């Protein structure tokens, strides 16, 4: 069994910066991540990829090296490829590594499991050849693989980022089909003050748009009625702009309309969540230090609410300071003094966020999908079936699950949970907070009997020693 003062789950910007700050304060840290290399989603495989593909992926990506390098610290043990599937009694973490289950005990646990792309159920989104834009980006970062004849569909800065990275890779997308409207942009100007505080983001956005225009990438803005065509795999995407119907033939469709907190681990230990209307998702309840209702468990980064990579890194450090104070590694005064610059940085990041959130809202057609659109990919449950369960008296997702198996598949609702909450909430006229979310139970990831047997053998051997 492993033991440490602090177990950090997730080696993205939040987890990496927390691990380093805690280690610097004298705590022993066990850092677990299911990926074979540190970086999280934004800095995926940065140690390797920055050497061969740095120019394509851009300076924001290479920035991640500063975080991965700092993991080399005597107090940090980073276990790669460690898939966490259960947290027990708020101090013990079960994970699988190299096909064997292992156990770790920590005085404190930090969940830094990041975000998932917001589910985007449109007709045809289950066809092979349809992926998330983030998936295409992961292929590019981690494997140096580009999708040919691709169309990017949805909204948000990540859509532009992926498009520019594809252009630089020499495999530009055929087109961008964007769902935000001029009215969204006008509304977002209310938050322009915030955006100006976060002016580097504004500038970055404009630069990306300029780069796309120079590359001759066609942008269709204000698209509705989006559908993916195809029989055995995606062969085209159809949509309407201003009453005119369009069809683009393609091989790959990349969907994206924002990211949402990955709440699986927090929910599995019954940390309360609340609905965040501005971001259209649930976020775990935690205080300004990332402390949750379970006193030994903290949350930092996009998993606590979407703030982006820089905000995640700052939040990770803040949480680490509080944990160090909590375990006697520093006084409250020392904590507050070190926290001050971090907090002001976080304020600027958050200000820019509200501009982004309102300029690029989720695609309305995917929040209220047509009756025959599949919502639960695993169990192939349609939006209409979910609405019918509301007619049968289902108020929340757990009842819907019992009726139509939505959320019962291996993804445990990661790509349907928010859709089901939203559809039931709209149909019943009950707010999302009251409608609730799936009850998540371990294992968070499938674990085999063989893997568990390995743990039992190991622990017995330890006891026998």
């Amino acid at each position, binding site marked *: 069994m492993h033991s440490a003062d602090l177990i950090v789950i997730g080696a993205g910007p939040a987890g990496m910066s927390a691990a380093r700050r805690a280690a610097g304060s004298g705590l022993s840290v066990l850092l677990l991540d*299911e990926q*074979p290399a540190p970086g999280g*989603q934004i800095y995926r495989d940065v140690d390797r990829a920055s050497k*061969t*593909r740095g120019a*394509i992926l851009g300076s924001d990506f290479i920035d991640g090296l500063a975080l991965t390098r700092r993991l080399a610290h005597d107090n940090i043990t980073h276990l790669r490829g460690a*898939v966490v599937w259960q947290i027990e009694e708020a101090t013990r973490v079960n994970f699988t590594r190299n096909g064997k289950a292992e156990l770790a005990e920590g005085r404190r646990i930090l969940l830094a499991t990041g975000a*998932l*792309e917001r589910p985007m159920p449109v007709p045809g989104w*289950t*066809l*092979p*050849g*349809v*992926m*998330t834009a*983030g*998936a295409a980006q*992961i*292929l590019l970062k*981690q*494997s*140096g*693989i*580009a*999708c*040919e*004849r691709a169309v990017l569909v949805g909204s948000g800065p990540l859509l532009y980022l992926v498009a520019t990275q594809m252009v630089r*890779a*020499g*495999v530009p997308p055929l087109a961008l089909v964007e769902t935000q409207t001029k009215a969204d942009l006008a509304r977002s100007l209310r938050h322009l003050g915030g955006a100006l505080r976060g002016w580097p983001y504004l500038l970055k956005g404009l630069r990306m748009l300029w780069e796309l225009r120079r590359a001759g990438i066609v942008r269709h803005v204000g698209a509705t009625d989006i559908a993916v065509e195809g029989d*055995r*795999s995606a062969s085209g995407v159809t949509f309407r702009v201003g009453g005119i119907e369009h069809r683009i033939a393609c*091989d*790959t469709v990349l969907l994206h309309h924002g990211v949402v907190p*990955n709440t699986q681990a927090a929910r599995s230990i019954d940390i309360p969540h609340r609905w965040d209307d501005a971001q259209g998702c649930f976020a775990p309840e935690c205080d300004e230090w990332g402390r949750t209702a379970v006193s030994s468990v903290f949350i930092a980064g996009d998993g606590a609410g979407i703030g982006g990579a820089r905000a995640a890194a700052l939040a990770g450090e803040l949480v680490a300071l509080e944990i160090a104070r909590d375990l006697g590694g520093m006084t409250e005064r020392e904590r507050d003094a070190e926290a001050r610059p971090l907090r002001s940085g976080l304020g600027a990041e958050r200000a820019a966020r509200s501009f982004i959130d309102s300029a690029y809202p989720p695609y309305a057609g995917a929040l209220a999908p047509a009756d025959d659109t599949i919502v639960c*990919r*695993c*169990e*192939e449950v349609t939006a209409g079936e979910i609405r019918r369960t509301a007619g049968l008296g289902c108020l929340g997702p757990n009842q819907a699950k019992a009726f139509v198996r939505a959320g019962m*598949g*291996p*993804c445990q609702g*990661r*790509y349907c949970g928010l859709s089901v909450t939203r559809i039931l909430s709209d149909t019943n006229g009950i707010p999302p907070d009251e409608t609730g979310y799936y009850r998540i139970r371990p294992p968070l*990831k*499938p674990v*085999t009997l063989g893997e568990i047997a390995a743990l039992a053998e190991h622990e017995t051997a330890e006891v026998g020693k």
Partner: protein
Amino acid sequence: MKPDSTFREIGPQTDRVTVRFGSSELSLPRGENLAGALLVVGVMPFRHTPLSGAPRGPFCMMGACYDCLVEIDGINRQACMLQVTEGLQIERPSIKGAGNA
């Protein structure tokens, strides 16, 4: 399986190892992400859903959607969470097992 893939490797070529996918032998880059490597050589779909038999392929590439499931040593595993190693024996998941990985 389509012979022509719509996914292209832009990176430097790395050394190759041989793996089996069903009855075919594939030459894949050692140590690289398995789902990505399979996409490049034109493997699609990866699996069929247990319910309707609909074809599926990688969707999220981050271990969350389970649409990239393949069977290795009798166990359904997410190809996007595995690396290419010499001698892998990969099968399409049997329809029955595909839902309860």
